[in-house]
């Protein structure tokens, strides 16, 4: 049925996952995300104190992470912007990885081997 005001399909899962993988490919961005996951929301200055990276570099990476939707900016104390980890895109990427991690070939090889061994035992009986 037609929606009230134009369709809003939202980002498709594949492009969300792709953006997450691009974001995670960089070690600095991984360390920023890890710091937010471990320590909760933080300002760029907080992160610069904790990580061996300049505040300018952190700000640049936070902008990219916010574009991807992996962090959101929110007002913090003394009018400084705090960044909060947002896990929704990560869950989309996890689904992609889950399909890759579901290894059926190993178990099915084992099933074939089991059936063959069981048949051989049957013949010997």
């Amino acid at each position: 049925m037609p929606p009230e005001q134009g369709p809003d399909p939202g980002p498709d899962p594949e492009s969300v996952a792709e953006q997450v993988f691009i974001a995670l490919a960089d070690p600095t961005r991984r360390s920023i995300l890890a710091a937010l996951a471990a320590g909760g929301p933080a300002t760029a200055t907080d992160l610069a104190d904790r990580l061996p990276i300049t505040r300018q570099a952190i700000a640049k990476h936070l902008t990219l992470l916010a574009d991807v939707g992996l962090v959101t900016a929110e007002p913090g104390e003394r009018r400084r912007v705090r960044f909060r980890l947002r896990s929704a895109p990560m869950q989309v990427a996890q689904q992609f990885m889950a399909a890759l991690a579901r290894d059926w070939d190993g178990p099915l090889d084992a099933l074939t081997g089991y059936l063959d061994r069981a048949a051989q035992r049957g013949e010997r009986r």
Partner: protein
Amino acid sequence: MGFPDRIERTLDVAHPPRVVWAAITTAEGLAAWFGQEAEIDLRPGGVARLAWDGGHVAELRVERVEEPSVFGFTWRVDAMPEDDPRRTYVEFTLEPTATGTRLRVVETGFAQLPDEGYRKGFESHTEGWGRELGELVAYLDAA
């Protein structure tokens, strides 16, 4: 990149469906090739548990039992958080062949919508249906 929703494998095995069925639906069979330990309550809604030496455990909910041709279950997606309700559906179909059994395994559901997308879609449909039905009632009232 490709976003797989479905994993599919077909294998021809030189054993009759009866034997393959036992291997995939009994605790003894499952423990011999799938997990290292297995238990199963073989009926729709029944629970099966598989355990591996490394401590990994999988809980299956049996969905379809049509001996000796269809066995289906759902289980969690490993990478998702423990409390995530999404599950994938695995279906084994067994078809007799001249030389034994054609076994097909299909697992679907990997590309389920993320929560936000689902919520948005659900809201949109709920809102849409309310509106459409309101229009229907208005039309009927006017007639």
